[in-house]
Protein backbone atom coordinates (compact mmCIF):
# COMPACT_ATOMS: atom_id res chain seq x y z
CA UNK A 1 0.00 0.00 0.00
CA UNK A 2 1.44 3.37 -1.00
CA UNK A 3 1.52 6.09 1.64
CA UNK A 4 -0.49 8.48 -0.55
CA UNK A 5 -3.36 5.93 -0.65
CA UNK A 6 -3.89 6.24 3.07
CA UNK A 7 -6.56 8.70 4.15
CA UNK A 8 -5.91 10.61 7.31
CA UNK A 9 -9.01 11.65 9.22
CA UNK A 10 -9.49 14.17 11.95
CA UNK A 11 -10.54 12.87 15.33
CA UNK A 12 -13.54 14.79 16.55
CA UNK A 13 -12.45 15.80 20.03
CA UNK A 14 -14.98 14.93 22.68
CA UNK A 15 -17.02 13.47 19.77
CA UNK A 16 -19.28 16.50 19.42
CA UNK A 17 -21.30 16.56 16.21
CA UNK A 18 -23.40 19.38 14.78
CA UNK A 19 -27.12 19.10 14.16
CA UNK A 20 -26.50 19.04 10.41
CA UNK A 21 -23.93 16.25 10.70
CA UNK A 22 -26.24 14.03 12.74
CA UNK A 23 -29.15 14.75 10.41
CA UNK A 24 -27.10 13.98 7.30
CA UNK A 25 -25.47 10.83 8.72
CA UNK A 26 -28.82 9.40 9.84
CA UNK A 27 -30.89 10.60 6.85
CA UNK A 28 -33.32 12.67 8.87
CA UNK A 29 -34.36 16.24 8.26
CA UNK A 30 -32.75 18.79 10.64
CA UNK A 31 -36.34 19.87 11.42
CA UNK A 32 -37.11 16.31 12.62
CA UNK A 33 -34.17 16.47 15.03
CA UNK A 34 -35.11 19.95 16.25
CA UNK A 35 -38.68 18.86 16.89
CA UNK A 36 -37.46 15.89 18.96
CA UNK A 37 -34.99 18.10 20.85
CA UNK A 38 -37.73 20.60 21.67
CA UNK A 39 -39.87 17.78 23.02
CA UNK A 40 -37.01 16.55 25.21
CA UNK A 41 -36.74 13.18 23.46
CA UNK A 42 -33.06 13.42 22.66
CA UNK A 43 -30.81 13.18 25.71
CA UNK A 44 -27.43 12.97 23.95
CA UNK A 45 -27.42 16.64 22.99
CA UNK A 46 -26.84 19.95 24.69
CA UNK A 47 -27.33 23.54 23.66
CA UNK A 48 -24.28 25.77 24.05
CA UNK A 49 -24.98 29.46 23.41
CA UNK A 50 -28.04 28.49 21.38
CA UNK A 51 -26.18 25.97 19.19
CA UNK A 52 -27.01 22.29 19.53
CA UNK A 53 -24.18 19.80 19.77
CA UNK A 54 -24.41 16.03 19.92
CA UNK A 55 -22.28 13.28 21.44
CA UNK A 56 -21.30 10.09 19.57
CA UNK A 57 -24.21 7.92 20.80
CA UNK A 58 -26.61 10.46 19.25
CA UNK A 59 -26.00 8.86 15.85
CA UNK A 60 -27.32 5.49 16.98
CA UNK A 61 -30.17 7.13 18.90
CA UNK A 62 -31.32 9.12 15.87
CA UNK A 63 -31.21 6.06 13.62
CA UNK A 64 -33.11 3.91 16.10
CA UNK A 65 -35.83 6.49 16.66
CA UNK A 66 -36.25 7.16 12.95
CA UNK A 67 -36.53 3.43 12.18
CA UNK A 68 -39.03 2.86 14.98
CA UNK A 69 -41.16 5.75 13.78
CA UNK A 70 -40.94 4.60 10.16
CA UNK A 71 -41.31 0.83 10.62
CA UNK A 72 -43.98 0.81 13.32
CA UNK A 73 -45.56 4.22 12.77
CA UNK A 74 -44.55 4.85 16.38
CA UNK A 75 -45.35 8.24 17.88
CA UNK A 76 -42.10 10.05 18.79
CA UNK A 77 -42.62 9.56 22.54
CA UNK A 78 -42.97 5.79 22.12
CA UNK A 79 -39.92 5.63 19.83
CA UNK A 80 -37.97 7.58 22.47
CA UNK A 81 -39.14 5.22 25.21
CA UNK A 82 -38.03 2.16 23.20
CA UNK A 83 -34.71 3.87 22.41
CA UNK A 84 -34.24 4.54 26.16
CA UNK A 85 -34.84 0.87 26.92
CA UNK A 86 -32.49 -0.29 24.15
CA UNK A 87 -29.76 2.03 25.46
CA UNK A 88 -30.20 0.66 28.96
CA UNK A 89 -30.00 -2.84 27.53
CA UNK A 90 -26.78 -1.94 25.68
CA UNK A 91 -25.31 -0.73 28.97
CA UNK A 92 -26.30 -3.88 30.85
CA UNK A 93 -24.95 -6.11 28.07
CA UNK A 94 -21.66 -4.20 28.26
CA UNK A 95 -21.55 -4.74 32.03
CA UNK A 96 -22.22 -8.44 31.53
CA UNK A 97 -19.34 -8.67 29.06
CA UNK A 98 -17.00 -7.07 31.62
CA UNK A 99 -18.18 -9.44 34.35
Amino acid at each position, binding site marked *: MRDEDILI*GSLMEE*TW*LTLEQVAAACTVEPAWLLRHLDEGLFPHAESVAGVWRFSGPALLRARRMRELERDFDAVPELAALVADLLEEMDELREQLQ*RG
Partner: protein
Amino acid sequence: MEFKDYYQTLGVARDATADEIRKAFRKQARKYHPDVSKEADAEARMKEINEANAVLSDPEKRAAYDQLGRNYQPGQEFRPPPDWDAGFEFSGRGFSPHEAANFSDFFAEMFGRGGGMGGAGGFRPQGGHSRAQGEDHHAKVLLDLEDAFTGATRQISLRVPRLDAQGRVTVDTRTLNVKIPQGVSAGQVLRLAGQGSPGMGGAPAGDLLLEVHFKPHPRMRADGRDIHLTLPVTPWEAALGAVVTVDLPTSQIKVRIPENAQSGSQLRARGKGIPGKPTGDLLLDIQVVLPPADTPRARELYETMAKELAFNPRGKD
Protein backbone atom coordinates in the same frame (compact mmCIF):
# COMPACT_ATOMS: atom_id res chain seq x y z
CA MET B 1 -29.45 -13.19 -10.46
CA GLU B 2 -32.22 -15.02 -8.62
CA PHE B 3 -35.80 -13.79 -8.54
CA LYS B 4 -36.86 -12.72 -5.04
CA ASP B 5 -40.39 -13.41 -3.88
CA TYR B 6 -41.15 -10.44 -1.65
CA TYR B 7 -44.59 -11.82 -0.77
CA GLN B 8 -42.97 -14.97 0.57
CA THR B 9 -40.44 -12.88 2.55
CA LEU B 10 -43.23 -11.07 4.36
CA GLY B 11 -45.46 -14.15 4.50
CA VAL B 12 -48.47 -12.59 2.75
CA ALA B 13 -50.66 -13.62 -0.19
CA ARG B 14 -50.18 -11.98 -3.59
CA ASP B 15 -53.53 -10.24 -3.25
CA ALA B 16 -52.80 -8.97 0.29
CA THR B 17 -54.20 -5.54 1.09
CA ALA B 18 -51.90 -2.65 2.03
CA ASP B 19 -53.05 -3.08 5.61
CA GLU B 20 -52.17 -6.79 5.64
CA ILE B 21 -48.73 -6.00 4.23
CA ARG B 22 -48.16 -3.34 6.87
CA LYS B 23 -49.19 -5.75 9.64
CA ALA B 24 -47.02 -8.58 8.29
CA PHE B 25 -44.04 -6.26 7.99
CA ARG B 26 -44.41 -5.03 11.57
CA LYS B 27 -44.74 -8.57 12.86
CA GLN B 28 -41.54 -9.63 11.08
CA ALA B 29 -39.72 -6.40 11.97
CA ARG B 30 -40.49 -7.04 15.61
CA LYS B 31 -39.31 -10.66 15.36
CA TYR B 32 -36.04 -9.86 13.60
CA HIS B 33 -35.23 -6.46 15.13
CA PRO B 34 -31.42 -6.74 15.39
CA ASP B 35 -31.32 -5.12 18.84
CA VAL B 36 -33.53 -7.70 20.49
CA SER B 37 -33.88 -10.73 18.21
CA LYS B 38 -32.51 -14.06 19.39
CA GLU B 39 -32.45 -15.40 15.82
CA ALA B 40 -28.93 -16.01 14.53
CA ASP B 41 -29.48 -14.37 11.14
CA ALA B 42 -31.60 -11.47 12.44
CA GLU B 43 -29.64 -8.74 10.71
CA ALA B 44 -29.71 -10.42 7.29
CA ARG B 45 -33.43 -11.22 7.66
CA MET B 46 -34.18 -7.63 8.69
CA LYS B 47 -32.48 -6.42 5.54
CA GLU B 48 -34.64 -8.75 3.41
CA ILE B 49 -37.80 -7.70 5.23
CA ASN B 50 -36.99 -4.01 4.77
CA GLU B 51 -36.33 -4.60 1.10
CA ALA B 52 -39.59 -6.52 0.61
CA ASN B 53 -41.49 -3.83 2.47
CA ALA B 54 -39.84 -1.03 0.47
CA VAL B 55 -41.35 -2.60 -2.65
CA LEU B 56 -44.70 -3.95 -1.46
CA SER B 57 -45.67 -0.93 0.65
CA ASP B 58 -45.18 1.39 -2.29
CA PRO B 59 -48.10 1.11 -4.74
CA GLU B 60 -46.02 2.03 -7.80
CA LYS B 61 -43.17 -0.33 -7.01
CA ARG B 62 -45.59 -3.09 -6.10
CA ALA B 63 -47.47 -2.70 -9.38
CA ALA B 64 -44.24 -2.83 -11.34
CA TYR B 65 -42.99 -5.83 -9.36
CA ASP B 66 -46.31 -7.66 -9.86
CA GLN B 67 -46.30 -7.03 -13.58
CA LEU B 68 -42.79 -8.31 -14.01
CA GLY B 69 -42.87 -11.04 -11.40
CA ARG B 70 -46.00 -12.81 -12.66
CA ASN B 71 -44.02 -15.46 -14.51
CA TYR B 72 -41.24 -16.05 -12.01
CA GLN B 73 -40.73 -18.51 -9.18
CA PRO B 74 -38.56 -17.74 -6.14
CA GLY B 75 -34.92 -18.57 -6.83
CA GLN B 76 -35.48 -18.70 -10.59
CA GLU B 77 -32.86 -17.01 -12.77
CA PHE B 78 -34.06 -13.46 -13.33
CA ARG B 79 -33.27 -10.99 -16.09
CA PRO B 80 -35.57 -7.99 -16.57
CA PRO B 81 -36.42 -7.11 -20.19
CA PRO B 82 -34.98 -3.79 -21.37
CA ASP B 83 -37.10 -0.75 -20.52
CA TRP B 84 -39.55 -2.93 -18.61
CA ASP B 85 -40.15 -0.11 -16.14
CA ALA B 86 -41.06 2.59 -18.68
CA GLY B 87 -44.14 4.36 -17.48
CA PHE B 88 -43.52 3.82 -13.79
CA GLU B 89 -42.57 6.66 -11.47
CA PHE B 90 -40.95 5.54 -8.27
CA SER B 91 -41.25 7.87 -5.34
CA GLY B 92 -39.73 5.92 -2.47
CA ARG B 93 -40.75 5.67 1.13
CA GLY B 94 -38.31 6.89 3.71
CA PHE B 95 -35.30 4.85 2.70
CA SER B 96 -32.11 6.75 1.97
CA PRO B 97 -29.96 5.89 -1.04
CA HIS B 98 -27.37 4.70 1.44
CA GLU B 99 -29.78 2.22 3.01
CA ALA B 100 -30.96 1.09 -0.39
CA ALA B 101 -27.35 0.28 -1.19
CA ASN B 102 -27.67 -2.56 1.31
CA PHE B 103 -30.58 -4.08 -0.57
CA SER B 104 -29.99 -6.99 -2.93
CA ASP B 105 -28.67 -6.85 -6.49
CA PHE B 106 -32.13 -8.03 -7.54
CA PHE B 107 -33.61 -4.86 -6.03
CA ALA B 108 -30.95 -2.66 -7.64
CA GLU B 109 -31.65 -4.30 -11.00
CA MET B 110 -35.40 -3.74 -10.74
CA PHE B 111 -35.58 -0.29 -9.20
CA GLY B 112 -32.23 1.06 -10.17
CA ARG B 113 -33.61 3.80 -12.41
CA GLY B 114 -32.74 7.11 -10.84
CA GLY B 115 -35.48 9.09 -12.57
CA GLY B 116 -33.41 12.23 -12.37
CA MET B 117 -33.68 12.29 -8.61
CA GLY B 118 -30.00 11.88 -8.03
CA GLY B 119 -30.55 9.04 -5.59
CA ALA B 120 -30.69 5.27 -5.68
CA GLY B 121 -33.79 3.72 -7.15
CA GLY B 122 -35.86 6.85 -7.10
CA PHE B 123 -35.51 7.20 -3.37
CA ARG B 124 -36.20 10.38 -1.52
CA PRO B 125 -33.81 13.05 -2.70
CA GLN B 126 -31.81 14.82 -0.02
CA GLY B 127 -33.05 18.38 -0.23
CA GLY B 128 -34.11 18.22 -3.86
CA HIS B 129 -32.14 21.31 -4.89
CA SER B 130 -30.07 21.50 -8.03
CA ARG B 131 -27.02 22.36 -5.96
CA ALA B 132 -26.74 20.34 -2.79
CA GLN B 133 -23.92 19.18 -0.59
CA GLY B 134 -23.33 15.43 -0.74
CA GLU B 135 -24.74 13.22 1.98
CA ASP B 136 -22.51 12.37 4.93
CA HIS B 137 -21.97 8.65 5.36
CA HIS B 138 -21.66 6.93 8.66
CA ALA B 139 -19.94 3.63 9.34
CA LYS B 140 -18.53 1.71 12.26
CA VAL B 141 -14.93 0.62 12.46
CA LEU B 142 -13.94 -2.24 14.74
CA LEU B 143 -10.44 -1.98 16.21
CA ASP B 144 -8.23 -3.97 18.51
CA LEU B 145 -7.64 -2.24 21.82
CA GLU B 146 -3.92 -2.27 21.06
CA ASP B 147 -4.62 0.03 18.08
CA ALA B 148 -5.61 2.82 20.48
CA PHE B 149 -2.07 2.76 21.91
CA THR B 150 -0.22 2.55 18.63
CA GLY B 151 -2.54 3.94 15.97
CA ALA B 152 -3.37 1.73 12.97
CA THR B 153 -4.19 1.70 9.30
CA ARG B 154 -7.43 -0.08 8.50
CA GLN B 155 -9.04 -1.07 5.24
CA ILE B 156 -12.71 -0.17 5.22
CA SER B 157 -15.18 -1.36 2.59
CA LEU B 158 -18.36 0.59 1.94
CA ARG B 159 -21.26 -0.14 -0.39
CA VAL B 160 -22.08 3.05 -2.21
CA PRO B 161 -24.91 3.67 -4.70
CA ARG B 162 -23.81 5.38 -7.90
CA LEU B 163 -25.77 6.68 -10.87
CA ASP B 164 -24.26 5.63 -14.20
CA ALA B 165 -24.44 7.40 -17.57
CA GLN B 166 -27.70 5.58 -18.47
CA GLY B 167 -29.34 6.75 -15.27
CA ARG B 168 -29.26 3.31 -13.66
CA VAL B 169 -28.05 2.84 -10.15
CA THR B 170 -25.24 0.46 -9.53
CA VAL B 171 -23.81 -0.38 -6.16
CA ASP B 172 -20.07 0.04 -5.94
CA THR B 173 -17.85 -1.28 -3.23
CA ARG B 174 -15.39 1.39 -2.23
CA THR B 175 -12.33 0.38 -0.29
CA LEU B 176 -10.56 3.02 1.72
CA ASN B 177 -7.32 2.80 3.64
CA VAL B 178 -7.80 4.90 6.73
CA LYS B 179 -5.21 5.89 9.28
CA ILE B 180 -6.60 5.62 12.79
CA PRO B 181 -4.63 7.94 15.03
CA GLN B 182 -3.17 6.91 18.38
CA GLY B 183 -5.38 7.75 21.33
CA VAL B 184 -8.87 6.97 19.97
CA SER B 185 -11.47 5.91 22.48
CA ALA B 186 -14.69 3.90 22.06
CA GLY B 187 -17.57 5.91 20.61
CA GLN B 188 -15.27 8.59 19.23
CA VAL B 189 -15.91 9.71 15.68
CA LEU B 190 -13.27 10.06 13.00
CA ARG B 191 -14.17 12.45 10.20
CA LEU B 192 -12.86 11.94 6.67
CA ALA B 193 -13.69 15.16 4.88
CA GLY B 194 -15.06 14.78 1.35
CA GLN B 195 -15.35 10.97 1.48
CA GLY B 196 -19.18 10.87 1.66
CA SER B 197 -21.55 11.14 -1.31
CA PRO B 198 -20.53 13.48 -4.13
CA GLY B 199 -22.29 16.86 -4.11
CA MET B 200 -24.68 17.95 -6.84
CA GLY B 201 -24.18 20.95 -9.11
CA GLY B 202 -20.61 21.52 -7.99
CA ALA B 203 -21.43 21.49 -4.28
CA PRO B 204 -18.89 19.87 -1.97
CA ALA B 205 -19.02 16.15 -1.21
CA GLY B 206 -20.26 14.94 2.15
CA ASP B 207 -18.01 13.56 4.87
CA LEU B 208 -17.46 10.01 6.02
CA LEU B 209 -17.95 9.68 9.77
CA LEU B 210 -16.37 6.58 11.27
CA GLU B 211 -17.48 5.57 14.74
CA VAL B 212 -14.77 3.72 16.66
CA HIS B 213 -15.54 0.48 18.49
CA PHE B 214 -13.20 -2.01 20.11
CA LYS B 215 -13.28 -5.79 19.82
CA PRO B 216 -13.56 -7.55 23.17
CA HIS B 217 -10.07 -8.21 24.55
CA PRO B 218 -9.28 -11.28 26.68
CA ARG B 219 -7.48 -9.29 29.41
CA MET B 220 -8.18 -5.61 28.95
CA ARG B 221 -11.18 -3.38 28.57
CA ALA B 222 -11.34 0.34 27.92
CA ASP B 223 -13.43 2.84 29.83
CA GLY B 224 -12.89 6.08 27.92
CA ARG B 225 -9.10 6.36 27.90
CA ASP B 226 -8.70 4.36 31.12
CA ILE B 227 -7.70 0.74 30.72
CA HIS B 228 -8.80 -1.99 33.10
CA LEU B 229 -6.51 -4.99 33.23
CA THR B 230 -6.81 -8.11 35.33
CA LEU B 231 -3.49 -8.82 37.06
CA PRO B 232 -3.08 -12.42 38.26
CA VAL B 233 -0.72 -12.72 41.28
CA THR B 234 0.51 -15.59 43.45
CA PRO B 235 -0.67 -15.84 47.08
CA TRP B 236 2.84 -14.93 48.34
CA GLU B 237 3.08 -11.90 46.05
CA ALA B 238 -0.27 -10.74 47.38
CA ALA B 239 0.54 -11.46 51.04
CA LEU B 240 4.15 -10.29 51.20
CA GLY B 241 4.06 -7.57 48.58
CA ALA B 242 6.13 -7.72 45.40
CA VAL B 243 7.19 -5.85 42.31
CA VAL B 244 5.77 -7.50 39.18
CA THR B 245 6.16 -6.75 35.49
CA VAL B 246 3.01 -5.97 33.48
CA ASP B 247 2.95 -6.23 29.69
CA LEU B 248 1.14 -3.38 27.95
CA PRO B 249 0.58 -3.11 24.19
CA THR B 250 3.57 -0.82 23.65
CA SER B 251 5.61 -1.16 26.81
CA GLN B 252 6.30 -3.06 29.98
CA ILE B 253 5.86 -1.47 33.36
CA LYS B 254 6.80 -2.54 36.87
CA VAL B 255 4.11 -2.36 39.50
CA ARG B 256 4.47 -2.65 43.26
CA ILE B 257 1.87 -4.93 44.86
CA PRO B 258 1.29 -3.74 48.44
CA GLU B 259 1.44 -6.24 51.31
CA ASN B 260 -1.79 -8.05 52.12
CA ALA B 261 -3.38 -7.31 48.75
CA GLN B 262 -6.56 -9.31 48.08
CA SER B 263 -8.46 -10.43 45.01
CA GLY B 264 -10.60 -7.47 43.98
CA SER B 265 -8.06 -4.85 45.17
CA GLN B 266 -7.37 -2.27 42.50
CA LEU B 267 -4.11 -0.47 41.72
CA ARG B 268 -3.99 2.68 39.62
CA ALA B 269 -0.99 3.55 37.45
CA ARG B 270 -1.55 7.16 36.39
CA GLY B 271 -0.94 8.07 32.78
CA LYS B 272 -0.41 4.47 31.60
CA GLY B 273 -3.73 4.11 29.79
CA ILE B 274 -4.62 5.15 26.23
CA PRO B 275 -2.52 8.16 25.18
CA GLY B 276 -4.33 11.45 24.65
CA LYS B 277 -5.22 14.71 26.30
CA PRO B 278 -5.36 13.70 29.06
CA THR B 279 -3.76 10.26 28.84
CA GLY B 280 -5.85 7.65 30.61
CA ASP B 281 -4.89 5.62 33.67
CA LEU B 282 -4.18 1.92 33.94
CA LEU B 283 -6.37 0.21 36.53
CA LEU B 284 -5.10 -3.17 37.64
CA ASP B 285 -7.62 -5.54 39.19
CA ILE B 286 -5.72 -7.96 41.38
CA GLN B 287 -6.72 -11.58 41.15
CA VAL B 288 -4.98 -13.98 43.53
CA VAL B 289 -4.45 -17.35 41.83
CA LEU B 290 -3.71 -20.43 43.97
CA PRO B 291 -1.18 -23.01 42.85
CA PRO B 292 -2.85 -26.44 42.57
CA ALA B 293 -2.22 -28.95 45.36
CA ASP B 294 -1.23 -31.59 42.85
CA THR B 295 2.05 -32.86 44.33
CA PRO B 296 2.81 -34.30 47.81
CA ARG B 297 5.03 -31.29 48.51
CA ALA B 298 2.34 -28.79 47.52
CA ARG B 299 -0.19 -30.59 49.73
CA GLU B 300 2.26 -30.56 52.60
CA LEU B 301 2.74 -26.78 52.28
CA TYR B 302 -1.02 -26.16 52.26
CA GLU B 303 -1.41 -28.46 55.28
CA THR B 304 1.31 -26.53 57.13
CA MET B 305 -0.54 -23.28 56.39
CA ALA B 306 -3.80 -24.79 57.55
CA LYS B 307 -2.18 -25.87 60.83
CA GLU B 308 -0.12 -22.78 61.52
CA LEU B 309 -2.26 -19.92 60.26
CA ALA B 310 -5.37 -19.28 62.31
CA PHE B 311 -7.39 -18.07 59.37
CA ASN B 312 -11.05 -18.35 58.57
CA PRO B 313 -12.21 -16.16 55.66
CA ARG B 314 -15.87 -16.65 56.69
CA GLY B 315 -15.35 -15.18 60.17
CA LYS B 316 -16.18 -17.17 63.34
CA ASP B 317 -18.36 -20.19 62.68
